[in-house]
Protein backbone atom coordinates (compact mmCIF):
# COMPACT_ATOMS: atom_id res chain seq x y z
CA UNK A 1 0.00 0.00 0.00
CA UNK A 2 1.41 3.31 -1.02
CA UNK A 3 1.38 6.42 1.13
CA UNK A 4 -1.92 8.16 1.38
CA UNK A 5 -3.37 11.62 1.95
CA UNK A 6 -6.26 12.16 4.31
CA UNK A 7 -9.12 14.00 2.69
CA UNK A 8 -11.61 15.89 4.82
CA UNK A 9 -14.54 17.18 2.81
CA UNK A 10 -16.69 19.57 4.81
CA UNK A 11 -19.81 21.52 3.92
CA UNK A 12 -21.30 24.20 6.19
CA UNK A 13 -23.90 21.71 7.32
CA UNK A 14 -21.68 18.74 8.10
CA UNK A 15 -18.48 16.78 7.68
CA UNK A 16 -19.15 14.79 4.52
CA UNK A 17 -16.09 12.67 4.13
CA UNK A 18 -12.96 11.92 6.09
CA UNK A 19 -10.79 9.14 4.75
CA UNK A 20 -7.33 8.34 3.41
CA UNK A 21 -6.73 8.03 -0.34
CA UNK A 22 -3.79 7.56 -2.64
CA UNK A 23 -4.51 10.46 -4.91
CA UNK A 24 -7.11 13.18 -5.08
CA UNK A 25 -7.57 15.49 -8.06
CA UNK A 26 -9.21 18.81 -7.25
CA UNK A 27 -10.45 21.54 -9.61
CA UNK A 28 -8.21 24.43 -8.55
CA UNK A 29 -9.00 27.96 -9.63
CA UNK A 30 -5.95 27.97 -11.90
CA UNK A 31 -6.27 24.43 -13.16
CA UNK A 32 -6.86 20.96 -11.80
CA UNK A 33 -4.16 19.53 -9.64
CA UNK A 34 -3.54 16.16 -8.07
CA UNK A 35 -2.64 15.78 -4.43
CA UNK A 36 -0.62 12.77 -3.29
CA UNK A 37 1.36 12.06 -0.15
CA UNK A 38 4.16 14.54 0.33
CA UNK A 39 2.48 17.33 -1.63
CA UNK A 40 3.80 20.78 -0.85
CA UNK A 41 1.58 22.83 1.48
CA UNK A 42 -0.86 24.81 -0.60
CA UNK A 43 -3.99 26.87 -0.18
CA UNK A 44 -6.17 27.40 -3.19
CA UNK A 45 -9.65 28.35 -4.24
CA UNK A 46 -11.71 25.86 -6.21
CA UNK A 47 -13.89 26.47 -9.21
CA UNK A 48 -17.12 24.48 -9.62
CA UNK A 49 -16.10 21.04 -10.82
CA UNK A 50 -15.39 17.48 -9.84
CA UNK A 51 -13.10 16.12 -7.18
CA UNK A 52 -11.82 12.75 -8.39
CA UNK A 53 -10.54 10.23 -5.91
CA UNK A 54 -8.10 7.58 -7.14
CA UNK A 55 -7.17 4.32 -5.52
CA UNK A 56 -4.29 2.70 -7.38
CA UNK A 57 -4.85 3.50 -11.05
CA UNK A 58 -8.60 3.30 -10.87
CA UNK A 59 -10.94 6.18 -10.25
CA UNK A 60 -12.83 5.37 -7.10
CA UNK A 61 -15.16 8.24 -6.54
CA UNK A 62 -16.25 11.47 -8.15
CA UNK A 63 -17.78 14.31 -6.17
CA UNK A 64 -19.15 17.50 -7.60
CA UNK A 65 -18.38 20.68 -5.64
CA UNK A 66 -19.87 24.07 -6.24
CA UNK A 67 -16.63 25.98 -5.70
CA UNK A 68 -14.84 26.30 -2.38
CA UNK A 69 -11.36 26.13 -0.90
CA UNK A 70 -8.68 23.53 -0.42
CA UNK A 71 -5.78 23.49 1.98
CA UNK A 72 -3.05 20.86 1.94
CA UNK A 73 -0.44 20.34 4.66
CA UNK A 74 1.36 17.33 6.10
CA UNK A 75 -0.48 14.75 3.96
CA UNK A 76 -3.78 16.16 5.16
CA UNK A 77 -6.09 17.98 2.85
CA UNK A 78 -9.20 19.90 3.74
CA UNK A 79 -11.81 20.82 1.17
CA UNK A 80 -14.37 23.43 2.17
CA UNK A 81 -17.31 23.31 -0.19
CA UNK A 82 -20.70 24.93 0.15
CA UNK A 83 -22.24 22.11 -1.77
CA UNK A 84 -20.96 18.63 -2.58
CA UNK A 85 -22.80 15.84 -4.39
CA UNK A 86 -21.61 12.40 -5.42
CA UNK A 87 -21.64 12.30 -9.19
CA UNK A 88 -23.03 8.77 -8.96
CA UNK A 89 -26.09 10.19 -7.21
CA UNK A 90 -26.89 12.44 -10.14
CA UNK A 91 -29.40 11.29 -12.66
CA UNK A 92 -28.95 12.64 -16.18
CA UNK A 93 -32.60 12.44 -17.18
CA UNK A 94 -33.75 14.09 -13.99
CA UNK A 95 -31.14 16.79 -14.37
CA UNK A 96 -32.10 17.54 -17.95
CA UNK A 97 -35.70 17.78 -16.91
CA UNK A 98 -34.79 20.21 -14.17
CA UNK A 99 -32.77 22.36 -16.55
CA UNK A 100 -35.78 22.41 -18.84
CA UNK A 101 -37.96 23.51 -15.93
CA UNK A 102 -35.45 26.14 -14.92
CA UNK A 103 -35.41 27.62 -18.44
CA UNK A 104 -39.17 27.85 -18.33
CA UNK A 105 -38.95 29.54 -14.96
CA UNK A 106 -36.63 32.16 -16.43
CA UNK A 107 -39.11 32.90 -19.20
CA UNK A 108 -42.04 33.01 -16.82
CA UNK A 109 -40.30 35.20 -14.26
CA UNK A 110 -42.30 38.32 -13.53
CA UNK A 111 -39.62 40.45 -11.89
CA UNK A 112 -35.86 40.73 -12.01
CA UNK A 113 -35.32 39.04 -8.68
CA UNK A 114 -37.10 35.80 -9.58
CA UNK A 115 -35.48 35.81 -13.00
CA UNK A 116 -32.04 36.17 -11.46
CA UNK A 117 -32.76 33.33 -9.07
CA UNK A 118 -34.01 31.07 -11.85
CA UNK A 119 -30.96 31.88 -13.94
CA UNK A 120 -28.67 31.03 -11.03
CA UNK A 121 -30.49 27.78 -10.59
CA UNK A 122 -30.12 26.94 -14.25
CA UNK A 123 -26.42 27.77 -14.35
CA UNK A 124 -25.92 25.60 -11.36
CA UNK A 125 -27.76 22.66 -12.93
CA UNK A 126 -25.78 23.03 -16.12
CA UNK A 127 -22.54 22.84 -14.17
CA UNK A 128 -23.80 19.63 -12.63
CA UNK A 129 -24.61 18.21 -16.03
CA UNK A 130 -21.14 19.13 -17.28
CA UNK A 131 -19.66 17.36 -14.30
CA UNK A 132 -21.36 14.16 -15.34
CA UNK A 133 -19.94 14.11 -18.82
Amino acid sequence: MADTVTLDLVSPEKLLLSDAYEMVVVPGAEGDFAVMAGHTPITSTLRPGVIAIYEGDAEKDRIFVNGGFVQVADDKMTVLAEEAIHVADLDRKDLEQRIQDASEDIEDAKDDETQRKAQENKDHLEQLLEAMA
Partner: protein
Amino acid sequence: MANLKELKNRITSVTSTQKITKAMKMVAAAKLRHAEEAANAARPYAERMEGMMVSLAAGLEGREGPRLLQGNGSDQRHLLIVATGERGLCGGFNSSIAKAAAQKADRLIAEGKDVKILCVGKKGHDALKRRFKNQIIDMVDLSGSRKISFADAQPIATRALSMFDNDEFDVCTIFYAKFVSVLTQEVTAQQLIPASIPEKAEGEESEIDYDYEPEEEEILADLLPRNISVQVYKALLENSASEQGARMSAMDNATRNAGDMIEKLTLQYNRERQAAITSELIEIISGAEAL
Protein backbone atom coordinates in the same frame (compact mmCIF):
# COMPACT_ATOMS: atom_id res chain seq x y z
CA MET B 1 -71.13 25.78 47.64
CA ALA B 2 -70.22 28.22 44.84
CA ASN B 3 -66.71 28.23 46.21
CA LEU B 4 -66.37 24.47 45.78
CA LYS B 5 -67.41 24.68 42.17
CA GLU B 6 -64.97 27.53 41.56
CA LEU B 7 -62.13 25.55 43.07
CA LYS B 8 -62.95 22.56 40.96
CA ASN B 9 -62.90 24.69 37.81
CA ARG B 10 -59.54 26.11 38.73
CA ILE B 11 -58.08 22.68 39.30
CA THR B 12 -59.29 21.57 35.88
CA SER B 13 -57.83 24.62 34.18
CA VAL B 14 -54.45 24.31 35.89
CA THR B 15 -54.35 20.62 34.99
CA SER B 16 -54.88 21.37 31.32
CA THR B 17 -52.23 24.09 31.46
CA GLN B 18 -49.87 21.56 32.95
CA LYS B 19 -50.60 19.16 30.12
CA ILE B 20 -49.72 21.83 27.59
CA THR B 21 -46.49 22.86 29.28
CA LYS B 22 -45.49 19.24 29.63
CA ALA B 23 -46.07 18.62 25.94
CA MET B 24 -44.16 21.77 25.04
CA LYS B 25 -41.27 20.64 27.18
CA MET B 26 -41.11 17.31 25.41
CA VAL B 27 -41.32 18.92 21.99
CA ALA B 28 -38.55 21.33 22.96
CA ALA B 29 -36.41 18.43 24.16
CA ALA B 30 -36.78 16.64 20.84
CA LYS B 31 -36.08 19.81 18.88
CA LEU B 32 -33.12 20.58 21.09
CA ARG B 33 -31.54 17.29 20.17
CA HIS B 34 -31.84 18.08 16.47
CA ALA B 35 -30.62 21.63 16.95
CA GLU B 36 -27.62 20.46 18.91
CA GLU B 37 -26.78 17.87 16.28
CA ALA B 38 -26.97 20.50 13.57
CA ALA B 39 -24.76 22.86 15.57
CA ASN B 40 -22.20 20.12 16.12
CA ALA B 41 -22.24 19.07 12.49
CA ALA B 42 -21.59 22.63 11.38
CA ARG B 43 -18.63 23.10 13.66
CA PRO B 44 -15.88 21.46 11.52
CA TYR B 45 -16.53 23.78 8.60
CA ALA B 46 -16.45 26.91 10.71
CA GLU B 47 -13.31 25.75 12.50
CA ARG B 48 -11.41 24.88 9.33
CA MET B 49 -12.45 28.08 7.66
CA GLU B 50 -11.21 30.02 10.65
CA GLY B 51 -7.94 28.10 10.54
CA MET B 52 -7.52 28.95 6.88
CA MET B 53 -8.29 32.58 7.54
CA VAL B 54 -5.78 32.78 10.36
CA SER B 55 -3.02 31.32 8.23
CA LEU B 56 -3.90 33.60 5.32
CA ALA B 57 -4.03 36.67 7.51
CA ALA B 58 -0.68 35.72 9.03
CA GLY B 59 0.67 35.29 5.49
CA LEU B 60 -0.22 38.89 4.69
CA GLU B 61 2.25 40.14 7.29
CA GLY B 62 1.28 43.75 7.48
CA ARG B 63 0.51 44.16 3.83
CA GLU B 64 -2.69 45.95 2.97
CA GLY B 65 -5.52 43.40 3.28
CA PRO B 66 -9.08 43.49 2.03
CA ARG B 67 -11.46 45.92 3.69
CA LEU B 68 -13.51 43.12 5.17
CA LEU B 69 -10.50 42.08 7.21
CA GLN B 70 -9.10 45.43 8.19
CA GLY B 71 -12.16 47.62 8.14
CA ASN B 72 -12.34 50.97 6.48
CA GLY B 73 -10.53 52.77 9.23
CA SER B 74 -13.60 54.24 10.87
CA ASP B 75 -15.99 53.08 13.56
CA GLN B 76 -18.58 55.80 13.27
CA ARG B 77 -21.46 53.80 11.87
CA HIS B 78 -22.53 50.51 13.37
CA LEU B 79 -24.79 47.77 12.13
CA LEU B 80 -26.19 45.48 14.81
CA ILE B 81 -27.68 42.19 13.69
CA VAL B 82 -29.95 40.98 16.46
CA ALA B 83 -30.77 37.30 16.11
CA THR B 84 -33.62 36.05 18.29
CA GLY B 85 -36.33 33.43 18.12
CA GLU B 86 -39.69 33.55 16.41
CA ARG B 87 -41.66 32.37 19.39
CA GLY B 88 -42.05 33.24 23.02
CA LEU B 89 -42.50 30.98 26.03
CA CYS B 90 -38.83 30.28 26.33
CA GLY B 91 -37.86 32.04 29.54
CA GLY B 92 -35.47 34.93 29.23
CA PHE B 93 -34.03 33.84 25.91
CA ASN B 94 -35.40 36.54 23.61
CA SER B 95 -35.42 39.33 26.12
CA SER B 96 -31.83 38.84 27.23
CA ILE B 97 -30.55 39.04 23.66
CA ALA B 98 -32.69 42.09 22.99
CA LYS B 99 -31.49 43.67 26.23
CA ALA B 100 -27.83 43.15 25.38
CA ALA B 101 -28.38 44.64 21.94
CA ALA B 102 -30.32 47.60 23.37
CA GLN B 103 -27.56 48.32 25.87
CA LYS B 104 -24.95 48.30 23.14
CA ALA B 105 -27.11 50.51 20.94
CA ASP B 106 -27.68 52.95 23.80
CA ARG B 107 -23.98 53.15 24.51
CA LEU B 108 -23.11 53.75 20.87
CA ILE B 109 -25.77 56.41 20.53
CA ALA B 110 -24.52 58.08 23.70
CA GLU B 111 -21.07 58.16 22.14
CA GLY B 112 -22.57 60.00 19.21
CA LYS B 113 -22.33 57.14 16.74
CA ASP B 114 -24.77 56.05 14.09
CA VAL B 115 -26.61 52.81 14.78
CA LYS B 116 -28.58 50.65 12.43
CA ILE B 117 -30.34 47.51 13.59
CA LEU B 118 -31.24 44.49 11.52
CA CYS B 119 -33.54 42.13 13.37
CA VAL B 120 -33.53 38.44 12.63
CA GLY B 121 -36.54 36.86 14.29
CA LYS B 122 -39.83 38.42 15.25
CA LYS B 123 -39.38 38.48 19.00
CA GLY B 124 -36.30 40.68 18.98
CA HIS B 125 -38.05 43.04 16.64
CA ASP B 126 -41.07 43.23 18.95
CA ALA B 127 -38.83 44.02 21.91
CA LEU B 128 -36.80 46.69 20.13
CA LYS B 129 -39.23 48.39 17.79
CA ARG B 130 -40.59 50.81 20.36
CA ARG B 131 -37.30 52.26 21.51
CA PHE B 132 -35.33 52.03 18.31
CA LYS B 133 -38.00 52.75 15.75
CA ASN B 134 -35.69 54.93 13.67
CA GLN B 135 -32.70 52.64 13.88
CA ILE B 136 -34.32 49.39 12.79
CA ILE B 137 -33.86 48.98 9.07
CA ASP B 138 -35.55 45.64 8.58
CA MET B 139 -36.71 42.40 10.11
CA VAL B 140 -35.87 39.00 8.69
CA ASP B 141 -38.58 36.50 9.42
CA LEU B 142 -37.38 32.93 9.72
CA SER B 143 -40.61 31.44 11.03
CA GLY B 144 -41.19 29.81 7.66
CA SER B 145 -38.18 27.53 7.90
CA ARG B 146 -38.56 24.81 10.46
CA LYS B 147 -34.95 23.80 10.35
CA ILE B 148 -32.25 26.40 9.97
CA SER B 149 -30.24 25.72 6.83
CA PHE B 150 -27.28 27.44 5.27
CA ALA B 151 -29.65 28.92 2.72
CA ASP B 152 -31.38 30.85 5.53
CA ALA B 153 -28.13 32.42 6.67
CA GLN B 154 -26.91 33.42 3.24
CA PRO B 155 -29.38 36.22 2.44
CA ILE B 156 -28.60 37.88 5.78
CA ALA B 157 -24.89 37.76 5.08
CA THR B 158 -25.38 38.95 1.50
CA ARG B 159 -27.43 41.84 2.76
CA ALA B 160 -24.79 42.89 5.27
CA LEU B 161 -22.08 42.59 2.64
CA SER B 162 -23.91 44.66 0.07
CA MET B 163 -24.56 47.32 2.69
CA PHE B 164 -20.88 47.32 3.51
CA ASP B 165 -19.98 47.62 -0.16
CA ASN B 166 -22.35 50.55 -0.49
CA ASP B 167 -20.56 52.14 2.44
CA GLU B 168 -23.59 52.20 4.70
CA PHE B 169 -21.78 51.15 7.87
CA ASP B 170 -18.27 50.62 9.23
CA VAL B 171 -18.61 47.94 11.87
CA CYS B 172 -21.01 45.02 12.00
CA THR B 173 -21.79 43.04 15.14
CA ILE B 174 -24.11 40.08 15.53
CA PHE B 175 -25.96 39.31 18.77
CA TYR B 176 -26.98 35.77 19.57
CA ALA B 177 -27.15 33.33 22.47
CA LYS B 178 -24.38 30.80 22.56
CA PHE B 179 -25.49 27.36 23.64
CA VAL B 180 -23.53 26.24 26.70
CA SER B 181 -25.94 23.78 28.25
CA VAL B 182 -29.67 23.33 28.64
CA LEU B 183 -29.58 25.57 31.68
CA THR B 184 -27.15 28.20 30.48
CA GLN B 185 -27.13 30.21 27.31
CA GLU B 186 -24.61 32.96 26.94
CA VAL B 187 -25.58 36.12 25.12
CA THR B 188 -22.71 36.84 22.77
CA ALA B 189 -21.84 39.86 20.68
CA GLN B 190 -19.56 38.89 17.84
CA GLN B 191 -17.95 41.32 15.47
CA LEU B 192 -18.36 40.24 11.86
CA ILE B 193 -16.93 43.16 9.95
CA PRO B 194 -14.03 43.83 10.13
CA ALA B 195 -13.41 40.14 10.76
CA SER B 196 -12.06 39.36 14.19
CA ILE B 197 -9.12 37.03 13.77
CA PRO B 198 -8.40 35.02 16.89
CA GLU B 199 -4.88 35.44 18.21
CA LYS B 200 -2.72 32.49 17.44
CA ALA B 201 -1.69 30.51 20.50
CA GLU B 202 2.03 30.35 21.14
CA GLY B 203 3.92 27.49 19.58
CA GLU B 204 1.09 26.40 17.33
CA GLU B 205 1.86 24.91 13.95
CA SER B 206 2.07 28.26 12.30
CA GLU B 207 5.37 27.54 10.58
CA ILE B 208 3.88 25.84 7.54
CA ASP B 209 4.78 27.85 4.50
CA TYR B 210 1.85 27.51 2.14
CA ASP B 211 1.86 28.06 -1.57
CA TYR B 212 -1.06 30.19 -2.58
CA GLU B 213 -3.01 29.79 -5.73
CA PRO B 214 -4.10 32.42 -6.66
CA GLU B 215 -2.50 35.13 -4.48
CA GLU B 216 -3.31 35.45 -0.77
CA GLU B 217 -5.28 38.62 -1.38
CA GLU B 218 -7.47 36.97 -3.97
CA ILE B 219 -8.18 33.95 -1.82
CA LEU B 220 -8.99 36.21 1.10
CA ALA B 221 -11.31 38.29 -1.05
CA ASP B 222 -13.16 35.08 -1.85
CA LEU B 223 -12.95 33.59 1.63
CA LEU B 224 -14.01 36.55 3.75
CA PRO B 225 -17.52 37.00 2.37
CA ARG B 226 -18.12 33.28 2.72
CA ASN B 227 -16.82 33.44 6.23
CA ILE B 228 -19.51 36.02 7.04
CA SER B 229 -22.21 33.60 5.85
CA VAL B 230 -20.65 30.83 7.89
CA GLN B 231 -20.51 32.98 11.01
CA VAL B 232 -24.13 34.04 10.57
CA TYR B 233 -25.11 30.42 10.03
CA LYS B 234 -23.22 29.39 13.13
CA ALA B 235 -24.94 32.12 15.15
CA LEU B 236 -28.37 31.02 13.93
CA LEU B 237 -27.68 27.40 14.81
CA GLU B 238 -26.39 28.26 18.26
CA ASN B 239 -29.43 30.43 18.68
CA SER B 240 -31.89 27.72 17.77
CA ALA B 241 -30.23 25.26 20.15
CA SER B 242 -30.28 27.91 22.89
CA GLU B 243 -33.91 28.74 22.23
CA GLN B 244 -34.99 25.13 22.58
CA GLY B 245 -32.84 24.70 25.67
CA ALA B 246 -34.32 27.80 27.25
CA ARG B 247 -37.83 26.73 26.33
CA MET B 248 -37.24 23.29 27.76
CA SER B 249 -36.15 24.57 31.15
CA ALA B 250 -38.84 27.25 31.21
CA MET B 251 -41.51 24.67 30.46
CA ASP B 252 -40.04 22.29 33.01
CA ASN B 253 -40.40 25.02 35.62
CA ALA B 254 -43.92 25.79 34.50
CA THR B 255 -44.90 22.14 34.71
CA ARG B 256 -43.50 21.89 38.19
CA ASN B 257 -45.25 25.08 39.31
CA ALA B 258 -48.52 23.82 37.91
CA GLY B 259 -48.05 20.59 39.85
CA ASP B 260 -47.50 22.52 43.09
CA MET B 261 -50.54 24.61 42.41
CA ILE B 262 -52.74 21.60 41.71
CA GLU B 263 -51.64 20.07 44.98
CA LYS B 264 -52.46 23.21 46.91
CA LEU B 265 -55.81 23.65 45.25
CA THR B 266 -56.76 20.02 45.78
CA LEU B 267 -55.97 20.30 49.46
CA GLN B 268 -58.09 23.39 49.72
CA TYR B 269 -60.86 21.74 47.75
CA ASN B 270 -60.94 18.73 50.04
CA ARG B 271 -61.00 20.91 53.13
CA GLU B 272 -63.89 22.92 51.78
CA ARG B 273 -65.70 19.77 50.85
CA GLN B 274 -65.28 18.30 54.34
CA ALA B 275 -66.34 21.56 55.93
CA ALA B 276 -69.46 21.55 53.77
CA ILE B 277 -70.28 17.97 54.75
CA THR B 278 -69.73 18.71 58.43
CA SER B 279 -71.94 21.74 58.37
CA GLU B 280 -74.63 19.81 56.52
CA LEU B 281 -74.48 17.06 59.15
CA ILE B 282 -74.73 19.57 61.94
CA GLU B 283 -77.74 21.09 60.26
CA ILE B 284 -79.47 17.73 59.97
CA ILE B 285 -78.64 16.66 63.52
CA SER B 286 -79.68 19.91 65.09
CA GLY B 287 -82.84 19.83 62.96
CA ALA B 288 -83.64 16.33 64.27
CA GLU B 289 -82.92 17.32 67.85
CA ALA B 290 -85.24 20.28 67.62
CA LEU B 291 -88.20 18.03 66.85
